[in-house]
């Protein structure tokens, strides 16, 4: 019972960590260059959750000073993650561009086929 309670209390962290590990697993286990990038994005997205969840305070409002409110949510994680999202988009775009070039040069986007073709050189 206590275990279930702990699970429920930390439900958001469980989701975050599941996404994190799933993303990292895809990056490592898949040989398809596009699927690797999908995994990488998943991995990065899990970190967005890691930051944003604790920033939300239950019952808190937007951080605009007003005599009617006493509890405010923390705005900083959102700002940080906005930056991280931009970085993530740039990384994904560059990664996809590289995959296009690799496909032009090798005619495949499977890692093992690329390495076997490199071995021939």
């Amino acid at each position: 019972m206590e275990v279930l309670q702990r699970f429920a209390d930390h439900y958001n962290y469980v989701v975050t960590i599941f996404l994190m590990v799933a993303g990292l697993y895809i990056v490592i286990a898949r040989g398809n260059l596009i699927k690797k990038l999908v995994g990488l994005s998943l991995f990065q997205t899990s970190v967005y959750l890691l930051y944003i969840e604790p920033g939300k305070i239950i019952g808190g409002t937007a951080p605009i000073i007003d005599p009617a409110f006493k509890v405010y949510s923390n705005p900083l994680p959102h700002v940080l993650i906005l930056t991280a999202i931009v970085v993530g988009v740039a990384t994904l775009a560059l990664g996809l561009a590289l995959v296009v070039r690799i496909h032009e040069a090798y005619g495949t986007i499977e890692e093992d086929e690329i390495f076997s073709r490199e071995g021939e050189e």
Partner: protein
Amino acid sequence: MRAIMPHLPALQVVVPLIGALLSALLRRGTTAWALALLVSWTMPLIAASLLLQVLTSGPTSYHLGGWAPPWGIEYRVDLLNAFILLLVSGVAAVMMPFARRSVAAEVDQDKQSWFYSMYLLCLAGLLGITVTGDAFNIFVFLEISSLSTYVLIALGRDRRALVAAYQYLIMGTIGATFYVIGIGLLYLVTGSLNILDIAERLGPAAAQSSRPILAALAFLTVGISLKLALFPLHVWLPNAYAYAPSFATAFLAATATKVAIYVLLRLFFSVFGIAISFEHLPVSEVMLALSVAAMFIASLLAIFEQNVKRMLAYSSLGQIGYITLGISLANEAGLTGGIVHLFNHAVMKAALFLVLGAIVFRIGSVKLADLAGIGRRMPLTMAAFVIAGLAIIGAPGTAGFISKWYLAVGAFQKGWWPLVFLILASSMLAVVYIGRVVEVAWFREPSGLAEKAKDPPLSMLLPVLVLAIATIYFGFDTQASAGIASQAAHALLAGIK
């Protein structure tokens, strides 16, 4: 002039950033090169005046946008990062004249201005990582420098450069994301992103809940170790260095890994040093074992490598092992050795990779077999290779000797005398792989490709010779390198006690 002085820390980032934008607008490679040269020669002046400022009046703090820390982003310059700033911008400035012909020969005409744009962006990122005192800001600059690095590598003509860049992108992003996770955990515990502020709050926070802090330490260590190519997280490095354009390889080998090592130093000693000593997690033991493994395994791989550029990349991994060895010793002599080796290795690896750039410029190959007898055709260039190679080995009278001496003293002071033998034995491996190239280049009859080679034009030869002479100079005059390094090490260790 007086109006600019207080803004020097910000200019470290702003000048190359604007340069990168302008360079992207230019169409001609030579014009972009001239712009990059102008920027690269300005940066050491800024860094040197910052270092002077720090030496005379202590650490300076710059509040970006006028927001006081810990709320705003603070650029904080103390002795250690002023030293690294000068190293990065200084090496870049010396190498820049080399770039024009080398890049013109190795990068397509229409992409040259993009190459310089990416180079300046990378420089801005590296200097930004070094100058900033904000942990999240480090991540942003880390990604700026990494993304531009991936492009620099992918601009190599060989199609394997693309795969190398892709692999580095995957590994580099995992590393950076680990870093953000670590910083996120620290932020959850301390509520701050300013490095000094985190360090102050970490002590009380560690007393309350030490587990997230240990997790943060683990994430940060692994993330940054990926970036600095600590064995066995190095797999991206050899191919990236082997297939990137020569100038990009030399620039990255001299600066990018060094800046990552700086971040590691900052985290270990300035952030975690105060709150938790290394006893809670066996960080220094793990690091010691990996450093020794890097020193030997990477050097062995270098011995059996036929592509000289990749051989030097493996050698870099081994040399990074010495630097992290100094960090894991964590006493004053060892840490001094680590920091001074960071400096010396940047200088000598820049020299070696530029020599290879000159060879590629003349004969278009870096296969060991093609270099037969090239020493007689390119005497000055290959003489520089021998000098910088001796420094890699750690021969007395070169810069490499100084750093290994400090490392050995550090190991002795800890009472770990077998480590001294390991340092010596791994240097013997360097004798083999450097000696192999020297033997082929100098003691064989010129044949094939090497037959028609000759020393490169002055604009390429001069940077090579300057760096080679610098490796000897810093072997004798240790005041500038080891003197500052030991002061910086002292300051870092003072944070722990």
